[in-house]
Structure formats: C-alpha cells, structure tokens
C-alpha cells in the first residue's frame, strides 16, 4: 500500500510535464509552427555530447539554489531573496579571492567560506525583520533583492574596480589566480573533444547530502520541519520559533552562498556585470518541482537545464525560443496543483484504510 501511494505521488510531475507539452503544442500550433518537428529538433540538439555537458554545468548552481529555497520551504518560510544572497556572496568572495595568495585547497575553502558567510548574513536580515518587526519574509526578501542589487552595483563599480580614464571596460573584479580555480573533471573522466565539465558538480552532490542530513537527520532539522507543518505543536514541543526562523533563514542563505561558487571558480573567475543572474528565481521553480526532495530537485534542475539548453537551437529555426519559458512556468503551475490533488487523494485513501483497520478490530 505504502509503495503504491509513493508511486501516486510520482504521477504529479509526470502529469505536469504532459500538460506543459500539451499546452506548448497548442501554442506552437497557434503561431503556425509544427509542434512535433519543434520538439524533435529540441530533443536532437539536447542529446548531443556538448549539450549534455552544458546541461550538467547549468544544473549545478540551479540545484544548489533550489536547495537553498527548499530549506526555507521546509519550515514554511519563503526565501525569495536567494537571488541577491548568492550574488552578494559571489561578489565578496570574488573580490577577496583575487586579493590573497594561498595554496590551492585553502584558497578555494576561503572563497567558499566568505561566500557562505556573507550570503547567510544578508539572509539573516530578513529573518530578523520577521521575528522582531513582523515583516513578512516574502516582502522583505524581495525588497532586499532590489537593495542588494544596488549595493552590489555600487561595490563593484566603486570599491572593487579601478576606473581607468576613457576606458570602456565594464566594472569587474580582478581575475582569480590559478590556485583559486576548481579544475574540470574532463581529464579525470577521460572525456576529450567536449567542453569542460565543472569540478564543482561533486560539490553539488555533497550539498544535496548535507541538505538531507541537516533537514532529516538532525534535531534542528526535526524542529524546522515540525514548525513548518504545525507551528503550534512545535512550540509546545519546546522549539523556539523566533530563534528557528532566523536560523532557518541563515541556513537557507548559507546554501545560497554556494550557488555562485561553480560559475565563479569554474569558468568566470571574476565577478562582472554579466555574472549569471536569475538563478535564485529559477531555484524556486526547481524547489517547487522537486517538492523539496534532494533527488527530486536534482531531476528538476536537470529537466529545466535541458529545456533551457535545447531551446537555444530554436532561434536558428525561426521558432521563438521563449516557448521554453512558458513550458517551465506551466510545469510549475500544474505541478503544484497536481501535488495538491494527489495529496488529497492520498489522505483520503489513508483515512479509508485506517477506518477499515479500526472496523476490522
């Protein structure tokens, strides 16, 4: 019985993906493109070796961002501010990482440490405002996104960047030295003729495990989940909601700090105005899609990266590649509805089962 219930839960994302494909088919048809042909082009392009490497590389920061959002979700907190949190961490760690000379292992550790700490403290502001001032975290994190973007732009242009007269170089931090770069996995795995596969992909796996361990295997995680599902019950069991809120925000922010590590140490090696942004918002999508489950979110991140990558080819075929954005959004919207329907079905089944057991006794 238990297994069949679990399988029913798996139906929800499958259903969502089918609905998304259905809707995009209709839309493509309406704008006069051949839907089957379009999906085939996307699939063919998405399964090339180059694309697979790109998809894996994309999904690393996306997955970590989803984990950061999920920590909040587990406690019923909505951290919409992952966006500015990870950018803040990436900027500060890029600036500091370029300024010091250390042996490789220490250097990378320092960069990660700085990113995690600064992101966590930026996130803590929202937690503090919620606990002490009663400001809802959705509003405060969104406002902090705008404020953070402004502060980052200021720091980047005026503090971490020497303006040269008459030069048109965009503001950027100094390049990270060789010791601060995480090597790619290509040599290790013996892959040739393909773009670099980030080394931090291993880090992402560890972050998934760390998330699982914190949320499901520690007493802190238990308190978080208890507060998330029933604040009152958690309070009577001795959890301190105020302390937990700030802590949960900080842990969420700390995970957000890892988001920028892969792009920074993997291929950008500096913070510039075109450092990848938007990962924080995409992370919300992935967290909803994967239902805050470490494996589910990994699959979600890979799915979204696949859609993003394979949509790139559409421009060459004169199909608007923005169809991919709609597919993403429809998947999210249907998946939250589908999960809710499944949840209700499962609860009803359980109630029936239980009453049957009681009746049999």
């Amino acid at each position, binding site marked *: 019985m238990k297994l069949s219930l679990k399988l029913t839960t798996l139906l929800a994302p499958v259903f969502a993906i089918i609905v998304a494909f259905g809707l995009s088919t209709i839309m493509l048809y309406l704008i006069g493109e051949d839907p089957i042909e379009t999906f085939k082009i996307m699939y063919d392009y998405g399964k090339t070796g180059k694309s697979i490497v790109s998809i894996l590389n994309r999904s690393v920061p996306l997955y970590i961002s989803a984990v950061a959002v999920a920590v909040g979700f587990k406690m019923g907190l909505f951290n919409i501010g992952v966006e500015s949190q990870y950018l803040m961490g990436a900027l500060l760690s890029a600036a500091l990482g370029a300024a010091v000379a250390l042996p490789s292992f220490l250097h990378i550790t320092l960069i990660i440490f700085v990113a995690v700490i600064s992101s966590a403290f930026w996130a803590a502001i929202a937690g503090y405002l919620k606990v002490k001032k009663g400001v809802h975290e959705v509003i405060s994190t969104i406002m902090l*996104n705008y404020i953070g973007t402004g502060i980052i732009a200021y720091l980047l242009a005026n503090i971490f960047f020497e303006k040269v007269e008459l030069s048109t170089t965009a503001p950027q931090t100094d390049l990270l030295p060789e010791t601060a770069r995480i090597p790619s996995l290509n040599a290790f795995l013996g892959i040739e003729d393909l773009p670099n596969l980030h080394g931090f992909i291993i880090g992402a796996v560890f972050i998934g495990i760390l998330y699982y361990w914190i949320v499901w295997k520690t007493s802190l995680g238990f308190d978080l989940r208890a507060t998330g599902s029933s604040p009152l019950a958690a309070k009577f069991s001795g959890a301190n909601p105020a302390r937990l809120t700030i802590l949960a925000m900080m842990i969420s922010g700390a995970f957000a700090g890892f988001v920028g590590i892969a792009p920074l140490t993997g291929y950008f090696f500096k913070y510039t105005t075109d450092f990848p942004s938007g990962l924080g918002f995409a992370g*919300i999508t992935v967290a909803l899609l994967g239902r805050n489950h470490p494996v589910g979110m990994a699959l979600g991140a890979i799915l979204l990266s696949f859609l993003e990558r394979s949509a790139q080819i559409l421009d060459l075929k004169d199909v608007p590649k*923005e169809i991919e954005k709609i597919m993403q959004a429809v998947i999210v919207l249907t998946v939250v509805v589908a999960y809710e329907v499944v949840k209700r079905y499962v609860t009803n089944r359980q109630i029936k089962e239980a009453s049957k057991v009681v009746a049999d006794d």
Partner: protein
Amino acid sequence: MSQTGKLKKHPRLLPMINFVKKHYLIILPIFFIVLIAQMDKYDQLTTSGTFGAAIRLAIPICLAGLGGMFSERTGIVNIGLEGMMIMGTWFGAWAAWLYGPWYGILAGILGGALFGLIHAVGTVTFQVDHIVSGVAINILAAGVARFLNVVAYADQPTQSSTQSPRIDGDVGDFTLPYLSGGADTPSLFGYLQDLNYPFISDIAGLLLGATSNLSYISIFSLALIPVAAWVLWSTPFGLQMRSVGELPTGSESLGVNVYLMKYIGVMISGGFAGLAGAYLVLESSGIYREGQTAGRGFIGLASMIFGNYRPFGIFMGSGLFGYADALQLRSDDAVHGLLILISLILFIFAIKQLLEKKYINSSISIALSIGFLVWFLNSETVPSEFVYFTPHLTTLIVLSSASQKLRMPQKVGQPYRKGELN
C-alpha cells in the same frame, strides 16, 4: 503627567497635543522634510514637479494595493500581484498600440483579471498554498509576457523579446482652473510656490502638483479609491466579500457562496493589478519594457499592509512610496537631503528608547544617527546605485516600524473547503 495637568486649563489644545502625540511618526518627518527643503540645494523635496511625479508614481502602487485588499479581504493572499501587473503592462501596451490608450486600459484590466482567475483556480478550487500559487503566477506571467512579445510584434522592425514598439496617442489631461492655472487662467498655487515662503510655498507646491496635468486615467484611478471603499463597506455584496475572509463557515451557513466570493475577490484583485500595469505603460513610459514593474506589485502589497487593509490607508501608504520613487527619479540632490532626515528620525528614536530605558537599542540608534550625519556632511550626493533603491528601502523601513498594530482579515491565507469546520 504634570504637563497634561497644566494643559487642562486649555481644553482646546488637548486634542491637538494628543493628535501630535499619536501621529508623531508621520508629522515629524513631514515637518523635517519641509525644513530641509528650505535649503536651496534640496528644494526639489517639495516642488510641484516632485509632488506631481509622486502622484503619478503612487497611483500604480495604490491600485496594486487596492487589488491586494480585494483579494485578502476574501481570505486569499495574493503574492501574484506582481505577475498580474506584468500582464497588465503587456496587454495594456499591446491593445494601446493596436487600438488606442483606452483599449489598452481595458485590455490591461482583463489581462490581470485572467491571471487572477488562474490564481483563484489554484487557491480556491485546488487549495494550493496561496504563496506557492502566487509565486508560480509570477513566474508564469514573466514567461507569457516574453513569449507573447516575440509573437505579437514579430513583423515589426523594432522586434525584440523585451520591448514593445512605442505607443502613440494619449488620453489627455486636466488642470484645475484658477487654482492651478488650467485653461489659461491664472495659477494661484503657482504664484504661492514662486513666492518661496517657508511652509506656504511648500504646501502650494503639493497642491499644484496634485491638481495640474492630471491625465484622465489618473483621475479614473483615483476615483476608484472611494468606489472601492463604498463597495466593500456600504453594499451587501461588499459585506459578503468581507465576511468570507473573516468567517467563511458562518457566511456559508447564511447562504453566501464562499467559493464564488473568493473567485470574484481574486479576479477584481487581478483587474486592479492589471490596471496598475497598464497605467505604468501609458502614463510613465509609453512603451512596454520587461522588468518595468520593478517590484511595484510587491510594494503595493506592502502599502496594503501599511494601510491596514483599508482603501484610504493604502492611498496614504502608496503616496509615501510614490514620493520616495519620485525623489529617486527627479533629483539625486533631494535624496541626499533624506540622509539628514534619517539621521534626525533616528535621533528621535534614540531619545524615545532612552526614555523607555532600552539603553542598548538607544545607543545603536545614536550610533546610526551619527553615522548618517557624518555621511551627509562628507558627501555631495548619494551614489546613483543607492538612489535607485530608495523606494524599496523606504518600504522595508516603513513596514518594520509600522506593521505591528494591524488587524488583518481573520482567515487570510487559510484554505477553506466546503463542509469542513474551520
């Protein structure tokens, strides 16, 4: 105590003193702003131009806030306001470009209401968590706007995924005759403003800004504030809507169709947000641009909380945020003047905390106050990157100093299922 004792001899003064005591958090900043505006460098703080811009910027925030109110009064949290506003900007621009501005307004409202319907299906029928559904709405709106923009303007020379072509034609505007100089009459407020008397000229500037060159869309939007109040508090329909947010089981037992009311509430909410979006396009930019809403839907939500879920409170709140936005747009100097304002307010906070014997908080406030003062004295302008987030920072500060004495609808954010006790 002794002070009030003395004042008993002047019974007429007592209500005034009480008023000041109760609202000093509003009165003092206004007083300081007027004071600072007397300096030449900062006179942009209170000119009619600034106030005019403030009103224009406040209206979309106010509309979004009213939208939020309609939804939350029926018990549905609407984080999706931003997304509905994005739909308003896109549909508004598209229809205005095709047929003219008034069609743009209509299309904006319908586009927002359509997304309100989606939110209602998610939260009312399927009982998805309201915030999750709202976040999903925001993601969906961004994607849809982008896709539609590519498709709709595909054969235009300026085709792009993030912008619409420029929209021609406007709805005309209105200036109050005699007082503000409409229809070639003399302008009394303008005359007073030019005199440069302290306070009188500042107030004349406010009135002049509020009553000149107001477009008909602005007047229509402002008129919706009393209409919203009337509908919610003076009609049976409004009573039913509010009852659904307070005690759905009770309303159900009295024959109110709870689901229907919630649907209507969320769709009106979307319509307001859509109108706010269309307003942004038609009034400020004349073009649809991606990211144009810049969090104004959320600021609208903040103004709703600040305004305690009431139309006129929302108007006041959005006025404040609109003012911050206007300063940000019009003059970097004026924002520099705000530094000394923050310093003064923090100083007053420090004294208040000292009187309440919160010594640690007080010393933090003092330190911050001195910090802002030093910053003010040692700089000529505020960096433009900081100026840009003035409205967002104002939102945070205002919410954190005002959000504790609120009364929200009792069942807001909670799912309701027919036939269940809750």
